[in-house]
């Protein structure tokens, strides 16, 4: 690792520690890292959109003379002017007088989006899911024939659980009849099914959050700490550990400052109570 790369790694490690400091309480280091992240993401997104969306379609096409031209259009695709004009109309939102014009591109956008989404979403999320829920239950697997692996989604037990579970969960949301008798029992089972679903989601979410922490730990150890002490690196010199210990010392000083403030506030509160 070159020294310049290591400095960026050190900066990334510093930002990681800044973000984790929020677990103790909100502080200026966290604020700095948060604002930097938001600003960088917005700037990066704007540039990615500019270079991947607008430039290839519309602008700054270079001609043979090597000069950039604003709004030079590929003559084979003049229809690109229509979405370009509609897009430009969105900027009228900044004018109180003409902001109504922005409804035209919005209407077009929503119309295209809804027209595309409705049939495809209906098919993928409703029809195919209903069809899977109502698949013939493989009763034979209950008697040891065919697919007897109960964890397999095509086994009879899985199919029965899916059918009964979906039915009961739907009945829980059916409010046109009082939840008493059979309906009440099915609704109760529906709640259990929903709770199991939420529990599975919660378990996965815990795993996801811990994963983020582990990844940062691996980064700090494998790239930052080992990078700072990697004497086998041909570019290694005194700057590596210095950069490392500057950040560590800075963080430790902040921790001591916070502890001192906390203890002094506690002491003051105690003295005040005693008085």
């Amino acid at each position, binding site marked *: 690792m070159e020294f310049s790369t290591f400095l960026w790694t050190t900066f990334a490690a510093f930002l990681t520690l800044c973000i984790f400091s929020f677990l103790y309480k909100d502080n200026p280091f966290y604020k700095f890292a948060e604002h930097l992240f938001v600003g960088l993401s917005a700037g990066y997104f704007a540039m990615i959109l500019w270079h*991947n969306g607008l430039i290839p379609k519309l602008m700054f096409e270079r001609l043979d003379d090597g000069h950039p031209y604003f709004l030079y259009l590929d003559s084979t695709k003049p229809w690109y002017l229509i979405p370009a004009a509609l897009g430009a109309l969105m900027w009228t939102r900044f004018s109180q007088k003409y902001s109504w014009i922005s409804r035209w591109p919005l209407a077009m956008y929503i119309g295209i989006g809804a027209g595309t989404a409705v049939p495809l979403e209906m098919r*993928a999320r409703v029809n195919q899911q209903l069809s899977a829920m109502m698949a013939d239950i493989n009763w034979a697997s209950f008697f040891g024939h065919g697919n007897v692996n109960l964890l397999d989604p095509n086994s009879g037990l899985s199919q029965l659980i899916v059918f009964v579970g979906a039915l009961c969960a739907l009945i829980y949301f059916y409010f046109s009849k009082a939840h008493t008798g059979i309906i009440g029992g099915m609704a109760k089972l529906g709640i259990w099914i929903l709770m199991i679903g939420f529990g599975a*989601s919660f378990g996965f979410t815990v795993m996801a959050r811990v*994963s983020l922490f582990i990844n940062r*730990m691996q980064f700090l150890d494998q790239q930052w700490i080992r990078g700072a002490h990697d004497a086998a690196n041909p570019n290694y010199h005194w700057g590596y550990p210095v950069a490392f210990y500057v950040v560590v010392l800075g963080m430790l000083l902040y921790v001591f400052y916070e502890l001192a403030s906390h203890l002094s506030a506690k002491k003051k509160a105690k003295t005040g109570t005693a008085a």
Partner: protein
Amino acid sequence: MNIFDKMMSFDRRWVFLFLAVICVAAYVAGIRIPILAEPEVTSIFRFIDTLPKGSIVFVPMDYDPGSMAELHPMTYAIVEQCWRKEIKVLITALSQNGPGMVDQALRDIADSMKVPRTYNGVSYPAREVVNGVDYAFLGYKPYPAMVILGLGQDFRLPFPLDYYGTPLDSLPMMRGAHNYDDIACAINISGTNATDYWISYGQGRYGFKLAIGVTGVSTAQYYPFLGSGQIFGIMGGMLGAAQYEKLADNPGNATAAMPIQLAAHVVIIAFVIMGNVGYFMTRRQQKRQQAVGR
């Protein structure tokens, strides 16, 4: 204040500190735990493993650095498996903050290909991976739904140029590849709702074989699509990645993280039990006090 009241008013910062200490201890200890691959992960591995040389696997990497902890290990394991088996990889990055990260990941994996390796008893020689021959990285375009529909007509429609500015027609790999009909399968690795689009607008509209690798947070919501056959495999979070690494015999960061996950989960379960005991005992005491008051 009795012990149950203390349990209920426990400062959450102690939980964070305790969890951090346990995670660091498990990381330093370097213990290993067995990883069992589930059928939904195995189906993806087996499908790729049985593809003939020269097939094209489409890997849309729709995530950004925020999800790389869970999804990068999947990317590394799948892409290296494809390249070792001389399967071509077509890549997009439909998350706006992702293209630079994906480009870096491809370079890293290409570097690891320069070293001979043995996976599952099969020796693979070192080889140079060539952009345009072994893979094509198409980059980012806004509005994933429209891009996915456009790709179904012709890859060149939303992406006339690849990420590096080369026309798709001049890439040797893309000469016979026009749309989803020319790929063996798509494996969407996503940390956003782009997976929904791949299921509804991609697989739903064009019917190609689709598998997904998603973050832990969204894993549970995609299992119904596995049961209905709309996807043929699913890798959920870091666990899914570790299972894939195990199948590919290519242990990486996900495998190394599993013992830490185990330790962290034990701690969290202990705290959940502790909180619940505290809650129920406090409630019981309050009820008793109310009964005595009457």
